[in-house]
């Protein structure tokens, strides 16, 4: 049996999406910037996709920029705003722009903030999550300064699947902004949220939002940034005047068409309905693992949790050897363990949440997808029990 439980890493391209994108690799190969008919066919397709994404997010088409993926969209949000503000009043008043973010962001945000900090281009506050992996609106409020220009909080954490209170934070920032001279813009990386959670930007009260194609059934290499009309974004990639002069480079037409279609497919059903089956399977999975394997803990909040994420800490065993054993029986998962990464550093998300290196080494993430079945979950649990038992016998830790 082959069981793929790593949908948060990437997902297969959906059939409808593949059908929609293929013509743009073949006959409709034109460059949207060309004025001839080939170009115009491509241009029309790109603008249609922009409308589809805009409708999915309840925004206007001109508020959507296509990028090479979630990472670029995150970079554009953070650097695009800090580039703008560094030229504005903060330089004159001798203070740098201030950005509030969390210690459990995706590296696309975290490393960008660290870069700005190191190069003296911005002042950054990294909020620590509580033991559930949650960031509260009060924490964000407390961190606000006179020179704050941006807050960026991940919607669903990619490792522990915790859903952050984006709407509450957004509303709080809106209130703060009423009292302020300079506005604080609010960004969320919603890459892991798009499939199962509300994505209406007005409901969420966000000014900027990132999505990625390959997590929702489009191919890799395409993403988008939503930015509310009044957001003073500055480009970070220079060249031609594509994407409203905010993102240079010939458009990835097939990718854009695919992202448009993928969001349309999602919009066909309400998010609660999309999430229903996955949520049930996830709960079944978590309940059985916690009951049937001893000395296991769930990483991240149980209540405020993505419908597709189950992340467990198996005491006394190391993550890579679990992954390796799972792989030998055809099960794909991922780990916060240092030993699976080239850097040999334990997961920054688990470290920030639990401050326990052993926990990071012994944690495994399972992420479900639309095709996941109960049989697959049963097969996974059966194997997991044998694997954990065997590795604990090899381990010198724990009670024998």
């Amino acid at each position, binding site marked *: 049996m*082959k069981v793929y439980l790593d949908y948060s890493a990437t997902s297969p391209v959906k059939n409808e999406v593949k059908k929609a994108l293929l013509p743009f690799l073949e006959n409709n190969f034109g460059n949207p910037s060309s004025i001839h008919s080939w170009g115009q066919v491509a241009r029309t397709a790109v603008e249609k996709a922009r409308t589809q994404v805009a409708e999915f997010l309840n925004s206007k088409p001109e508020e959507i920029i296509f990028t090479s993926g979630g990472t670029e969209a995150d970079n554009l949000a953070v650097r695009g705003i800090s580039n703008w503000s560094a030229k504005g009043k903060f330089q004159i008043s001798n203070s740098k722009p201030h950005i509030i973010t969390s210690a459990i962001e995706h590296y696309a945000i975290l490393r960008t903030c660290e870069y700005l900090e190191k190069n003296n281009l911005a002042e950054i506050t990294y909020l620590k999550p509580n033991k559930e992996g949650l960031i509260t609106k009060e924490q964000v409020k407390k961190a606000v300064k006179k020179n704050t220009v941006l807050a960026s909080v991940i919607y669903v954490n990619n490792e522990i699947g915790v859903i952050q209170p984006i709407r509450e934070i957004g509303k709080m920032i809106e209130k703060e902004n009423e009292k302020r001279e300079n506005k604080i813009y609010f960004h969320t990386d919603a890459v892991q949220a798009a499939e199962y959670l509300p994505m209406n930007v007005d409901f969420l009260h966000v000014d900027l939002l990132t999505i990625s194609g390959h997590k929702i059934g489009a191919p890799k290499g395409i993403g988008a940034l939503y930015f509310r009309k009044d957001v003073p974004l500055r480009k970070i990639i220079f060249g031609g005047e594509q994407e409203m002069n905010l993102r240079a480079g010939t458009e990835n037409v097939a990718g854009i068409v695919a992202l448009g279609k993928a969001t349309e497919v999602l919009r066909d059903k309400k998010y609660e309905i999309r999430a229903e089956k996955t949520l049930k399977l996830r709960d079944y999975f978590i309940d059985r693992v916690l009951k049937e394997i001893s000395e296991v803990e769930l990483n991240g909040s149980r209540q405020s949790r993505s419908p597709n994420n189950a992340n467990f800490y198996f005491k*006394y*065993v*190391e*993550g*890579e*050897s679990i*992954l*390796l054993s799972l*792989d*030998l029986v055809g099960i794909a998962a991922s780990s916060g*363990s*240092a*030993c*699976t990464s*080239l850097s*040999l550093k*334990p997961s920054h998300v688990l470290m920030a949440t639990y401050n326990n*290196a*052993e926990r990071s*080494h012994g944690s495994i993430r399972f992420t479900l997808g639309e095709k996941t079945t109960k049989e697959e979950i049963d097969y996974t649990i059966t194997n997991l029990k044998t694997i954990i038992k065997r590795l604990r*016998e*090899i*381990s*010198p*830790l724990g009670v024998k």
Partner: protein
Amino acid sequence: MSKNISSLYSKKVMEHFSHPRNMGTIKNPSGRGRVGNPVCGDLMELQIKVEKKAGKEYIKEAKFQTFGCGAAIATSSMLTDMIVGKDLKELKKISNQTIVESLDGLPPVKQHCSVLAEEALVKAIADYKKKVKQ
């Protein structure tokens, strides 16, 4: 899909990971070496039973327990395989390099696992020698 994580490792490593030799503990071991740290993600305990025969001290039995990645488990298993039956002088020839070679290589980021195995051996022998002197 014929490739999987296990293709990162040699067949020998996978064989030792899947079927580790000499796993467990020894009753009243002559020496033990515990190295590494669970905080770093690797912890290895080697236990040896030393016997004297024809004036030579040799390893009669070796057992290990390891918390760690696939490479850490495989190197510990290989180490025990390599030392059983050898006399203490011969053991000096065993280094992290010879362990890696016996496993048909390890990925570059996993070389430290073999160093850990060598340290466990050195520590276990030192522990034995200390006990003999007492």
